[in-house]
């Protein structure tokens, strides 16, 4: 079994990728503007909720309870979904999931699939696997369509094309849709996408979706969205395949009451999503004739096993942490080398696919805590980042120079007379430090002038008076 999260095993380290992205001033302006806008909307609709903190706690508690009993909730979901006419498949990793999905599409002799609202399929690189066997996937979310047509990568969990501005999107549409003329207004771009997609919605026989929530009690699946493409994807085709990570389960239908308040306000700053689709199995004469669910593990049970960081699986993919993050704000999502970017990506990707592939991600944070503050299910991301850093150091993943430096510092700080001697050394190094600077620091920042007397030395002279 091999766990992979998209192409992130091959991705450059965070500092390296970030350095490159920081040079793209247009991208940085786009990211700043978009995150400022979403953040402003989110703050407004959160501030109007008198019970927001209680809702956060409720969301956290439901997720905790679910994860404690995930095994039985999953089986309960399978039973309920099967009883309602659905078929449930279990996939241990990306390859198993892709094989199941390809098998279903091929059993119907189909060569095309329309897709909506799915991050897990980016995780498994489903499109790549489909294309390899001659099946054409069409993304129908506007942003995902922009990414697909532009041969780009998503840079945000909720707004995947947020790093592109209007004129860049217009150019992609002109180049790939065969359009000679196209207006500049957002309405013109939306109309072009609508024309492009509508014909596919009506023609393609297989639909593919992710899920925001799946209800164990009823076997229902829930997708929320803003564009209506999701509603079409899950109702128009003859065959519907829905894949989601095993942590998307909630115990009962009533639990949706909490999450359908938390999610839209945190994600897009809306009180409610324009489209909330909830369906249960198959209904004869209405919607798809065949419904498949693929339950994806792909490393999630491994995350579940670590009590210190288990709450990573609480995530409902609202991306509020991305919009609040001062690091993400500078680089956008591509620096994280994974479909899961920002603070949640920095803790999720390394845990899913193993530390050795992503030892730089847990350090891609100043630990400022803005992510934890906005998280609707109270994931203590800074704590988990520190926990993962500890695991990296304990498994020998830190650089030798750092390990030596930390050992020397630890030895020095364990005794005040050693600290006093080290302070003397710093004072002696004053001039060379001033002249050559400190690597990693001095490229953009001056060092403070090192005083000739430490506080403890001053205190001694004071006592002598």
């Amino acid at each position, binding site marked *: 079994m091999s766990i992979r999260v998209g192409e992130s095993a091959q991705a450059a380290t965070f500092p390296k990728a970030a350095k490159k992205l920081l040079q793209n001033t247009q991208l940085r302006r786009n990211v700043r503007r978009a995150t400022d806008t979403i953040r402003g909307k989110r703050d407004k609709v959160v501030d109007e909720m008198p019970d927001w903190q209680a809702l956060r706690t409720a969301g956290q508690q439901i997720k905790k309870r679910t994860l404690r009993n995930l095994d039985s909730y999953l089986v309960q979901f399978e039973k309920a979904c099967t009883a309602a006419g659905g078929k449930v498949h279990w996939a241990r990793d990306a390859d198993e999931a892709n094989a199941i999905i390809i098998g279903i599409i091929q059993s119907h002799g189909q060569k095309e699939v329309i897709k909506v609202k799915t991050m897990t399929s980016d995780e498994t690189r489903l499109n790549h696997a489909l294309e390899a066997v001659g099946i054409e996937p069409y993304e129908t979310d506007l942003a995902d369509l922009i990414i697909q047509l532009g041969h780009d990568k998503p840079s945000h969990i909720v707004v995947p094309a947020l790093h592109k501005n209007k004129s860049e999107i217009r150019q992609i549409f002109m180049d790939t849709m065969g359009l000679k003329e196209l207006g500049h207004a957002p309405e013109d771009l939306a109309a072009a996408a609508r024309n492009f997609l509508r014909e596919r919605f009506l023609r393609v026989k297989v639909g593919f979706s992710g899920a925001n929530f799946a209800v164990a009690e009823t076997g229902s699946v829930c997708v929320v969205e803003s564009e209506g493409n999701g509603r079409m994807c899950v109702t128009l085709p003859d065959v519907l395949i829905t894949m989601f990570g095993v942590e998307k389960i909630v115990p009962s239908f009533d639990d949706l009451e909490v999450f359908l308040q938390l999610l839209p306000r945190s994600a897009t700053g809306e009180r409610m999503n324009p489209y909330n689709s909830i369906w249960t199995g198959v209904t004869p004469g209405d919607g798809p004739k065949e419904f498949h669910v693929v339950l994806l593990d792909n490393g999630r049970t491994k995350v579940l096993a670590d009590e210190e960081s288990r709450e990573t699986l609480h995530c409902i993919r609202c991306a509020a942490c991305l919009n609040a993050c001062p*690091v993400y704000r500078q680089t956008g999502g591509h620096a994280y080398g994974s479909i899961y970017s920002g603070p949640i990506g920095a803790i999720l990707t390394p845990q899913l696919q193993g530390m050795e592939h992503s030892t730089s991600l847990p350090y*891609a944070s100043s630990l400022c805590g803005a992510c934890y503050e906005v998280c609707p299910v109270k994931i203590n991301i800074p704590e988990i980042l*520190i926990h993962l850093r500890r695991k990296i150091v*304990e498994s020998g993943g830190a650089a030798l120079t750092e390990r030596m430096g930390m050992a020397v510092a630890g030895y020095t*700080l364990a005794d*005040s007379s050693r600290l006093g001697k080290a302070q003397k050394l710093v004072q002696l190094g004053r001039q060379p430090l001033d002249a050559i600077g400190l690597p990693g620091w001095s490229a953009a*920042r001056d060092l403070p002038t090192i005083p000739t007397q430490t*506080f403890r030395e001053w205190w001694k002279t004071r006592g002598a008076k």
Partner: protein
Amino acid sequence: MLISLFITCYNDTLFPGTGKSVVRVLERLGHTVEFREAQTCCGQMHYNTGYHPEAVTIMKKFVADFLDAEIVCIPSSSCVAMIRDHYPKMAKEAGLEKEVAELVPKVFEFTEFLTDKLGVTDVGATYPHSVTMHTSCHALRSLDCGDRPQRLLKAVRGLDYLELPAGDQCCGFGGTFAIKNAEVSTAMLSEKMRSVLDTGAEVCTGSDNSCLMHIGGGLTRQRGTARCVHIAEILASEEGDQ
């Protein structure tokens, strides 16, 4: 009140003026300050970077050095946050739960000590300059400092207080983050410097010399018009100092 000063390792080495100012303010208010010379560090750098055993060793030393103190006052929000947020969990592994539970409530950051424990906002300072304040992330989110530092600053004679725009945004220091991710760190710093300079203030203050060293280092490199000064030094200032 006998107040034990924990100066912190980097203030001791790089910013002794901050410690002298704390002593000056507390003595001016009629209290006695002691300095326990065995003290070194809180262990934050090791803990946040993933070096857990080293951090636990330093925590044990801090607990031994200060357990019998009446009050511990620290001119650094992030060190106080380290002690409050992480010591209780680390203590479980180190078998020091009782000691840490006893010590933590006696530990205060300098400005919250003045406002909450001593109940003063006017500390008798004069500082005839325009001042803006960078609230460090630990002061803001961990210590939940609210407007305590601002109340202290606004009571200083001659001080013209200017609000910092986007004040809840991290300056990009983040300890070893500033070195490991130097480029992103300085990109964050650029935004912070722009905010500081936009206020037109002569001085940017704060309760953490770590952030101020970062912002101040950027400002002097850019020949910026503002300089960074720890809040203790402002509160210690008296007429005739400038």
